[in-house]
């Protein structure tokens, strides 16, 4: 195999999706920018008028900002976990999804923490977190963990990009000058020599193990912010593993959705095949079963112990939030299980549909964890206005939430314009290995 020629072919194949934004792409970017602009307006309103413009009050001090924060962090965590596992165990089908997963990891880790900053009423005191940290506070652990995780993930993402940057640098005919310069500097002189390859492989493997550990630590710390309090519904010993399983579940869901959209939009059917969806579907099934088991265990223990405040919380969940509870904890779990469990139902579209249900269900599950607990506190505030006790998000919060989602998609699209969504170096490695295997087989057959 002529590797140089193959590299050229791959660059030629992926160049259109990196260089020429199509009509739909432009429309999409315009919509996303409009949503982000709407979010900026809402942000200005919130900063100038204060948290009063949100639905957060004395009882419910964590609203959909916190839910979005958890949601995006769980995407990041599951992305890091999946990416780490794919690289660490050198999974055969990693080429199809690894780049998608890596981009999801980093982008969600950038977007997620913005939501927690929006939750703060006194942004001018944000730096106090670093100047006067309380080491014994889970909030401080969270700040340290997220910062470390972000740096680790960025570093890891960069490592996986280097071989592709080098390919793009060496085959940059027809590319704009700034791109050539960018690829040259980002490739840091990588020439794919045996020693460079060995070194890069070694540090990528170390970092892949590191991001798995970091993701588990970060998401556990996030779960501890809730579970280390004595609040009904939060004070639970299984919250950290429950969050991790829930994170994996929704993360796998988002990866499947991203795979479907990228496959369809960029016509990458020969790279992202049905087999990849089936494998991802099986992982979705396993995580759905685990997540369902944890959810049942969590609520069953609360119901059986029948402590007054837990009983009040369950009462609120089954009355005030009945449909949301059904959607999050029944439909959000059982429907994906039913779809992926039966072989006949497993198609690309149905698996993607199951993933959408899982992601929507998970978002509502986060809502049910965060809000109803705050609406049923230990010391009820008496003679107060109902809107102070019951939370409902305002337009400002929704505008900023949609802006966050838009920013996530926009960053994703921009990163896809920087490097191919399917790692070219991975394809070449795969083809080289396949050829070597075939050669080996031929030699064995010869007497």
């Amino acid at each position, binding site marked *: 195999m002529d590797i140089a020629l193959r590299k050229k072919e791959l660059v030629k194949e992926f160049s259109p999706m990196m260089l020429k934004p199509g009509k739909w792409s432009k429309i999409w970017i315009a919509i996303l920018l409009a949503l982000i602009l709407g979010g900026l307006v809402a942000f200005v309103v919130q900063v100038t008028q204060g948290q009063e413009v949100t639905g957060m009050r004395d009882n419910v001090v964590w609203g959909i900002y916190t839910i979005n924060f958890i949601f995006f962090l769980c995407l990041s965590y599951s992305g890091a976990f999946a990416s780490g596992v794919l690289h660490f165990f050198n999974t055969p089908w990693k080429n199809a999804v690894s780049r998608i997963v890596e981009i999801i990891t980093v982008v969600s880790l950038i977007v997620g923490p913005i939501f927690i900053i929006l939750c703060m009423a006194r942004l001018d005191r944000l730096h106090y977190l670093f100047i006067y940290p*309380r*080491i*014994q*506070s889970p909030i401080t*652990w969270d700040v*340290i963990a997220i910062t*470390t995780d972000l*740096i*680790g993930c960025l*570093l890891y993402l960069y*490592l996986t990009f*280097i071989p592709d940057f080098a390919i793009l640098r060496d085959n940059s005919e027809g590319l704009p000058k700034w791109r050539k310069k960018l690829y040259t500097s980002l*490739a*840091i*002189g*990588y*020439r794919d*020599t045996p*020693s*460079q390859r060995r*070194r*890069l492989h*070694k*540090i990528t493997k*170390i*970092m892949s193990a*590191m991001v798995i550990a*970091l993701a588990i*630590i970060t998401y556990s710390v996030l779960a501890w912010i809730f579970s280390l309090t004595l609040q009904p519904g939060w004070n639970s010993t299984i919250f950290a593993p429950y969050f991790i399983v829930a994170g994996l579940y929704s993360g796998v869901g988002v990866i499947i959705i991203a795979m479907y959209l990228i496959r369809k939009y960029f016509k990458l059917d020969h790279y992202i095949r049905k087999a990849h969806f089936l494998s991802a579907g099986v992982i979705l099934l396993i995580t759905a079963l685990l997540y369902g088991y944890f959810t049942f265990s969590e609520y069953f223990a609360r119901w059986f112990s029948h402590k007054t405040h837990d009983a009040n919380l369950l009462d609120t969940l089954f009355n005030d939030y009945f449909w949301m509870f059904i959607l999050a904890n029944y439909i959000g779990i059982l429907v994906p299980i039913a779809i992926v469990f039966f072989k006949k139902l497993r198609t690309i579209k149905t698996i993607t549909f199951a993933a959408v249900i899982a992601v929507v269900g998970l978002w509502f599950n986060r809502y049910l964890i965060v809000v109803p607990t705050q609406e049923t506190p230990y010391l009820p505030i008496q003679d107060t206005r109902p809107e102070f006790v019951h939370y409902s998000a305002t337009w400002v919060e929704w505008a900023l939430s949609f802006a966050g989602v838009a920013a996530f998609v926009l960053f994703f699209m921009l990163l896809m314009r920087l490097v191919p969504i399917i790692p070219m170096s991975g394809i070449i490695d795969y083809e080289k290995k396949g050829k070597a295997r075939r050669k080996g087989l031929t030699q064995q057959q010869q007497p």
Partner: protein
Amino acid sequence: MKFNLFTYIAYILLFGLFLAPNVMAQEMNLRDYRMRFRFKTVKQPDQSRMLEASFIAANKKDRKDRLPVYGAEISFFNILEEEKVALGTTKTSKEGIARILLPKDQSYLRDEEGKVTLKAVFEGTDEMDMEEREITVKDVQLSVELSEKDSVQTVQVNAHTLDSLGVAIPLEEADVIISVQGMLSRMVMDEGTLEDGMYEYKMPIDLPGDMDGNMTVFATIEDHEDYGDVVQKKTVKWEVTNISNQENKNHLWSEVAPIWMYVVLTILLAGIWANFAYTISNLFKIKKEGQKLEQSL
């Protein structure tokens, strides 16, 4: 003139609107309620005697509907046959309770057995009937002894009456309640019956006292047909541990985190950042090798 007449009629109607519904309601309410007039006497620990009358209107149909009669004038008397001595007059509170406190050296009219008859009287109004209650009690000397024998904290209650010659006669078959003072109310520890004028109770050793370790123990005879209510108390420093004043050992609420937390966090972060540093140093080596290759080309 015509205008004035209409104005007056309007005023009367308006006044009637404000007044009439209330008057009607009051009349109707009174017919629906039954008056409950109760009277009791409590001999206090300092030997004074409290006279207490409670005046409550209870709905005949709805048991839960109970309205205290506020501001009713209650007179208290000590009577012996035809003789009647006024002890005092007071009005019922918002809770429908009228109380007076008689000093410990108050002299009473007593019958041959030494019994005192006390009476509470509500004279009545145009709407409400007269109410009166009478009770006869014999003076009881109740004492509480707190002692620690062989590390066992013991409460001994003694009760006797005095005959006309001043000889102590121990009480028989009277129920006594042992309780301790809590923050909001008394906590009942034991209920028993006096035998030969005495009752003994072994206190548990794990009861918290107040800030100084003091505990106030009460002995009470309640609603006895011969003696009424009698209360006695005593405070003792039994040095029991006051749980609420124990130092909170939750280190996470302290100003400084526990050392193990610093150690674990430092090891974790050092381990992670060492890996980052190692990765970055390898990236520099890759870069260096790339630069050498470029120069050689």
